[in-house]
C-alpha cells in the first residue's frame, strides 16, 4: 500500500511523472489489453481502446483521489472505454450492443489473434448472447479470474449482485451450449 502511495506520488510529481507513467504502462499494458480484448474481442479495437484508456489515465492523474486502488481506477476507465466503443458501433450500425458482440464473435474465426477450438468458439458465442452486464461479470470472473471484490470496485455493483449475475450467466451459457 505504501509502495502504491509512493508510486502515485511519483505519477503526480511533474519531475518524475513521465518515468513513473512508463512503469505504469509496462506494468498494466498486458493485463489491460486482455481485459479490453475480452470485452471488444477484436485486436485492432483493443489496441485503440488500450491507447485511449492510458492517455485518459495520464490526463486524469491529477483527479485521482486515491479513494480506490490504482488498479481498480485504471480498469474502470478501460471498461468504460470498451463499452463506449461498443455503444458507438451499435449506434452507427443501428443495432443493439449485443448484436455488435455477436458480429465480433462471428469475425473471430478469421482473426489471427484467436486460436480457440470449437468449444471455445461456442463459449464465446454463448457469452455474446448474454445481456451486457452479465457478459461483463462473466468475462471478468471466469476468463480474467478477477475477485468479486475487485470487480465490484471496478463496475460499482455490490458483490451480491455480481454473484447473482454470474450465476444467471453460467446457467444461460450451459443452456446455450446444450442446445446449439
Amino acid at each position, binding site marked *: 500500500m505504501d509502495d502504491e502511495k509512493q508510486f502515485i506520488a511519483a505519477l503526480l510529481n511533474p519531475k518524475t511523472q513521465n518515468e513513473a*507513467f512508463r512503469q505504469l504502462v509496462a506494468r498494466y499494458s498486458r493485463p489491460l*489489453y486482455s481485459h479490453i480484448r475480452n470485452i471488444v474481442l477484436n485486436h485492432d479495437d483493443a489496441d485503440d481502446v488500450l*491507447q485511449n484508456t492510458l492517455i485518459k489515465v495520464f490526463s486524469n492523474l491529477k483527479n485521482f483521489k486515491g479513494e480506490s486502488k490504482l488498479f481498480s481506477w485504471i480498469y474502470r476507465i478501460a471498461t468504460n472505454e470498451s463499452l463506449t466503443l461498443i455503444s458507438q458501433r451499435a449506434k452507427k450500425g443501428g443495432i443493439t450492443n449485443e448484436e455488435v458482440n455477436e458480429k465480433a464473435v462471428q469475425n473471430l474465426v478469421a482473426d489471427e489473434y484467436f486460436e480457440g477450438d470449437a468449444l*471455445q468458439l461456442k*463459449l464465446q458465442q454463448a457469452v455474446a448472447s448474454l445481456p451486457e452486464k452479465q457478459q461483463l461479470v462473466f*468475462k471478468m470472473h471466469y476468463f480474467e479470474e478477477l475477485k468479486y471484490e475487485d470487480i465490484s470496485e471496478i463496475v460499482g455493483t455490490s458483490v451480491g449482485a455480481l454473484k447473482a449475475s454470474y450465476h444467471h450467466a453460467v446457467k444461460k451459457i450451459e443452456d446455450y*451450449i446444450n442446445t446449439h
Partner: protein
Amino acid sequence: MNNFKLNEEHKIKSGLTSPQDVYFENFTERLMQQLPAPEIKVVPLYRRKPVWFSAAAGFVVMLTGGYFLLNNSPQATTQPDTAAIENYLVYQTNVTSYDMIDHLDSQDIKELEASIVLNDDAIKDYLSDEDVYLYE
C-alpha cells in the same frame, strides 16, 4: 452437446491470444510520444479585472466628472474695463509712461486731449501736489 456443466469442465480459456512482446514494447513508445504536453503555467500580461473593480472605477469617474461639471460651468467671457487695464498697466507691469507714449501717434494724442476735461481747480490742485510754483 448435452448436460454441459461449465464448472465441471476443465477451465475453458477464451481462445483470444495476446500479441508478441514486441507489440507491447512498440506500444509503450508509441503511447509515450502521444502523451499530452505538460501544462505550462502562463502568466497573463493583462489580467481581466473583476466586475466590481470596473463598477468602482466607473463610479469614481462619474463622481469626478460631475464635480467638475458643476463647478466649472462655462462662464461668459468678460472684458476687463478701462480702469482695470489702467490699474494693471500702472501697478502690475513694468511698462513706464514713456513706453506708452512711444506707442501713441498724433491721432491718439488728439483723442486724448479731447477726452480729458480739465478745469482750473484741478490744475491748481495738481500743481500744488507736485510742488510746482507758479509765478504770475
